[in-house]
């Protein structure tokens, strides 16, 4: 079976994110970029499919040339090949624009299963996996906390507030996983050394037959006009106890006023 793992290059989770005042997008030069931590879970799941079913796994990245280390990092976990979609016109794409690019890339690829991370650590929309499935007309299995492939079908446990549903779909399908699905391993030394020699293909929008009008900041369904840093936290109300017992009444009034009691 063939599996594609789309991964994202995101600003370092631990670092401070800076918005560029001119482009009104996250300034990716301001800090280090890393393989999005949620992808460690989708990659681990793909590695397990490789071990169990001999799956051939391709990692897919949409991003500028500088995203190549992200592909290599993903390959160091033992994946087989890389596919990078690079085109200046993609910059500033929203979730739907990104999904269009990924869907077009997948249409040009042979696959049985696409394994997404659940929610990137920067944008946190969770929209791309479902949008890709919709664009491709494939079953969408989100919030996956367990998955099993048997021949032409996939069964997942789909997590929700009260537990999980058992959902079955036919392949090909698109899944996105939650962090509870597995405990990701580290890349092995051999994996790190082998990553450089794995095949890596780069494609542009023209290669995929996607028009530049459908993607990028111009095609985004929402437009950002301005931004402001979060206002500093205001000091809370201080009630001082002067020993007269008035403080207790003040506190009770305050709780009532705020509708805590």
């Amino acid at each position, binding site marked *: 079976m063939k599996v594609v793992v789309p991964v994202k290059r995101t600003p370092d989770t631990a670092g401070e994110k800076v918005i560029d005042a001119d482009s009104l997008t996250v300034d990716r030069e301001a800090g280090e970029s890393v393989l999005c931590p949620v992808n460690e879970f989708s990659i681990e799941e793909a590695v397990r499919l490789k071990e169990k079913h001999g799956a051939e796994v391709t990692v897919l990245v949409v991003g500028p040339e500088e995203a190549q*280390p992200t592909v290599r*990092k993903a390959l*160091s976990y033992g994946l087989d090949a890389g596919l990078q979609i690079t085109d200046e016109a993609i910059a500033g794409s929203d979730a739907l624009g990104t999904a269009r690019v990924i869907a077009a890339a997948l249409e040009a690829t042979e696959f049985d299963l696409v394994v997404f991370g659940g929610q990137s650590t920067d944008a946190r929309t969770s929209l791309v996996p479902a949008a890709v499935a919709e664009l491709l007309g494939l079953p969408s299995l989100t919030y996956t906390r367990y998955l099993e492939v048997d021949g032409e079908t996939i069964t997942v446990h789909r997590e929700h507030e009260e537990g999980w549903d058992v959902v079955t779909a036919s392949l090909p399908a698109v899944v996105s996983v939650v962090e509870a699905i597995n405990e990701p391993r*580290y*890349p*092995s*030394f051999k994996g*790190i*050394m082998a990553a450089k020699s794995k095949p890596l293909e780069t494609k542009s929008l023209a290669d995929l037959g996607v028009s530049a009008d459908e993607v990028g900041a111009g095609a985004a369904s929402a437009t950002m006009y301005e931004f402001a840093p979060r206002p500093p936290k205001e000091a809370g109300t201080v009630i001082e106890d002067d020993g007269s017992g008035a403080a207790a009444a003040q506190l009770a009034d305050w709780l009532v006023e705020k509708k805590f009691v």
Partner: protein
Amino acid sequence: MSAHAAAPPTVSYVLTDEQRQLQEMVRDLFAQRAAPDRVREVMLAETPGYDDALWQELANYGLLGLTIPEAHGGSGASFAELAIVLEEAGRRLAPVPLLSSAVLGTEAVLGGATEAQAAALLPGVAAGTTRLALAHLDLGGDLLAAPGVVASRDGATWHLDGTAAYVIDGASATHLVVAARAGDDLELFVVPGDAPGVSRTPVEVLDLTRPLATVEFAGVEVAEEDRLAGGPAMAALHRALTAGVVAIAVEQVGGTAHTLEACTAYARDRIQFGRAIGSFQAVKHRLAELLVELESARSAAIHAARVLAAGEREELAIAAPLAKSYCSEVYERSAADGIQLFGGIGFTWEHDQHLYLKRAKSTKLLLGDPKHHRALLGELLAL
């Protein structure tokens, strides 16, 4: 001026992309698996004296055979990569027998074994199932003295008698690489840890994260094919000890780096007299000096590791004792300063700083103290 001073630098100190990824990976791995609670749990348990789960994980990631050729089940990398792992292990005081098995034992075998012997032993070492320990000291622990074990030959069988002291991880190792006197010669033998006639007694140690043992040999029978016969045993032993010296220096850099990071974080955090203690000159100057010393120590240790990896024996003869003498002193000073910088909490058993001080004290003496290494340097440089 001696010849080495004019030699152009032939090794790089910059990490390759792969080496940086390895560093990132092992740093995170040890942070997760060798957290302080786990280190204490392992060090206070009587057996097995090391963290077997972590050891197996290191094996699975291909980190135990970094210097072992691929033909013998290893990764065919170099000591430069192993040094990265050792530094990160030192940062966390990871209770695993890297120094004894992956460095001392492996280097002795690589230096002394025939191809057939290496093929029989090293795949197990890389897989983590064979753990080697080097038994080469006499009871006095003097590096320059002859080993405390005597070998006598009887046809195709050797008999080992005597005592080897301060054997690192000697009680838990599956196999002992034993240096023994055979007449005027030195020989190295590979002996299963549970061979009849071998008795191993754990020694009471200051640094509980690195167990030592006294190993007694009473008429232990060793077949001739278990005598390392691929080259002069003295050269193999020397190779192992030199690698051990460099490994300790690198590990000391890791421990010093941890100490500095922990102290700096604390100095930012801890408020006294209404301000962070790091704003007091007495504290911040000490930290600044520590940083300068750490960087010097790191340069010395990495230089030694890189010339070892590159096989530059002449430069290594100088780089190894230089690194060991300097890094030992920097680690000891930083670990002791750390106790002070942490104030009251630094004096408690619950705080981890004393573990670093004990590791600093023990590694300062391990495989030769700074005085010993300075004397070597003095001789080599004709000072």
